[in-house]
């Protein structure tokens, strides 16, 4: 019995390692702890504050653990007039969706958990659509005015951001000639797609801000009018799950941004091992994206719903069509540059 | 400013009970309560267009409430205090909301604190006092016969 298990582990060591450590559970939890801590600390510094200091002696690095412990040990309340079962179940399902997205991403040339038979991009975009819908459902079952307005706004946001994203991603697909995420990264060996696809990148970035609910496109969770958006009624452990889902979603979309436009794992082979340096470069780029997004968060105002939807339909969609035309011309005149 | 006094007296005669200019930029006019709306309209046409405040004073000895409105004139830069006396037993007065829309909240507050009924006021609804305030038991807070003793903390 044990021998067979050991044999199984030996044979599938890499897969198991990927599921449990990187990019699986351990990585996701590590990212959560780091991202929330880093956000609080970085924003606090920009606000000329200190942020958490005393928890865990050095730079308040244990702050997130303390928060998690507190939230887990708190009472959780299910409001009387909500749909109780769904109210309880949906937040548990919610973090799973972005977690699946995370494992679709290639971290090095031969380091990908599931490549979806060369259709990774399509699977990613298809699964990512579920997240706002679940989010909307959560707002609806909570049966609170603020969550219901938040739910409506989630749908507005979905309408405003999702279609431009898909259209702008088409440019990348045309250049690389494939839906396979590994091949897309390989196609960026010579030039990162941010240069030929600069229009598409801008459209994608704005859509990305919407899908991850970050300023200036974070109107579904606008705390000045909606308290916490769809999260308003959640307490304790369930609230923790919702927060987690939020950050994992951010991680997944940031990784997609890195893969599509910033050259993915491409970079100098500094460790003498392609896999390790690939992972290294992916994470470095991820970190840079995070810093940029947080800086944007602190320097801009939030768009109103109608303004955001107008931006999506009147500006972003025409822009992405122009981008498509440019892409086709580029592909036609310089076919050799894009690896495919 | 003297001309305003003459104009008012010739227009309304005995209804103007008092006309004072205590200092620069101030006019105090006291009118009888039945002509208050007409005087207000007249003053508005004279350029007194911005309501600043309104309220009442309880003169328990004379058995009257003195209701006052404070109006500013945007082009003349004068503050006008329009006053009138009403009886304490039957405190009703015509509301001036139709003349100056801005006095709505002040009259609402006066209604709440003194129990003065403003006729023609669109929204006499409780504003500042708690929902469980009982006028029968506790009385109107800004009247002089209202005592703070039951609420005072013992030393």
């Amino acid at each position, binding site marked *: 019995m044990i021998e067979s298990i050991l044999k199984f582990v030996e044979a599938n060591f890499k897969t198991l390692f990927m599921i449990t450590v990187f990019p699986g559970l351990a990585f996701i939890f590590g990212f959560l702890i780091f991202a929330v801590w880093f956000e609080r600390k970085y924003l606090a510094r920009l606000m000329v504050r200190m942020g958490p200091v005393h*928890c865990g002696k050095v730079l308040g690095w244990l702050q997130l653990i303390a928060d998690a412990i507190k939230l887990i040990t708190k009472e959780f*309340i299910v409001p009387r007039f909500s749909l109780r079962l769904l109210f309880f179940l949906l937040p548990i399902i919610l973090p799973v969706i972005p977690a699946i997205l995370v494992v679709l991403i290639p971290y090095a040339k031969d380091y990908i958990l599931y490549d979806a038979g060369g259709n990774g991009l399509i699977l990613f975009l298809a699964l990512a659509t579920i997240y706002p819908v679940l989010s909307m459902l959560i707002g609806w079952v909570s049966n609170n005015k603020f969550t219901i307005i938040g739910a409506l706004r989630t749908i507005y946001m979905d309408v405003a951001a999702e279609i431009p994203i898909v259209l702008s991603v088409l440019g990348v697909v045309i250049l690389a000639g494939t839906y396979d995420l590994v091949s897309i990264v390989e196609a960026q060996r010579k030039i990162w797609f941010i240069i030929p696809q600069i229009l598409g990148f801008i459209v994608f970035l704005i859509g990305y801000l919407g899908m991850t609910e970050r300023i200036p496109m974070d109107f579904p969770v606008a705390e000045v009018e909606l308290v916490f958006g769809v*999260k308003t009624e959640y307490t304790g452990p369930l*609230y923790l799950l919702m927060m987690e889902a939020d950050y994992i979603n951010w991680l997944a979309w940031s990784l997609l941004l890195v893969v599509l436009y910033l050259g993915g794992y491409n970079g100098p082979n500094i460790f003498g091992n392609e896999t390790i340096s690939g992972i290294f470069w992916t994470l470095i780029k991820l970190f840079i994206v995070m810093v940029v997004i947080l800086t944007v968060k602190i320097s801009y105002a939030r768009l109103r719903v109608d303004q955001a939807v107008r931006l999506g339909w009147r500006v972003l969609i025409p822009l992405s069509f122009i981008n498509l035309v440019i892409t086709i011309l580029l592909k036609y005149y310089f076919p050799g540059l894009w690896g495919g | 400013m003297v001309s305003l006094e003459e104009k008012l007296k010739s227009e309304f005669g005995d209804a103007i009970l008092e006309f004072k200019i205590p200092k620069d930029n101030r006019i105090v006019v006291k009118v009888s309560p039945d002509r208050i709306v007409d005087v207000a309209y007249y003053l508005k046409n004279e350029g007194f267009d911005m309501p600043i405040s309104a309220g009442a004073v309880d003169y328990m000895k004379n058995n009257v409430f003195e209701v006052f409105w404070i109006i500013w004139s945007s082009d003349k830069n004068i503050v006008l205090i329009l006053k009138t006396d009403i009886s304490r037993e039957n405190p009703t007065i015509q509301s001036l909301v139709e003349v100056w829309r801005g006095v709505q909240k002040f009259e609402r507050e006066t209604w709440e604190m003194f129990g003065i009924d403003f006729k023609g006021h669109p929204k006499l609804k409780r504003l500042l006092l708690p929902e469980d305030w009982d006028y029968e038991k506790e009385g109107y807070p800004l009247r002089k016969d209202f005592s703070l003793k039951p609420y005072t903390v013992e030393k």
Partner: protein
Amino acid sequence: MSKYLEKFEGLYRKLPKPIRKIFNWGRSFSIWPIHYVTGCCSPEFMQVCGPRYDMERWGILPMASTRQSDAIFFVGNVTRKMMIRAIRLYEQMPEPRYVVNIGVCTISKGPFYDSYSVVKVEDYLPVDVYISGCPPKPEAILHGALTLRKKILGEKVGLVRREIKK
């Protein structure tokens, strides 16, 4: 006390001591007061959350929704009309929950000792920490918050603390 809470209460009491200590440590470092102002000490409270005094150093972070918060900081005078809402907010908060009085008005009505509208908080809700002053200095508010932290560290871990006084 609901049946559900009683059940959890029993579970918590059975936990070994080190684990309960860890729970207390977590709770003591993440006190999230509600974003709720009742009176005139609020500017001072704002300064305490601001850069110079920065309460977030100890993980004290004002939260927008009652459902995610752990404490009510009564910032200045509480009137009868406000108390009705405050009790409702207290009922909406998940256990364990704490109450802190900031400012002398909340303790003994302070400069409004003869007001017909201001009430004492302790007549309605169980209070954990009293901070006196009108308004208290930022150092005093910080000291109060840290006193609450110490109190949490030393208490028996459980879900239910006290019932609401009627």
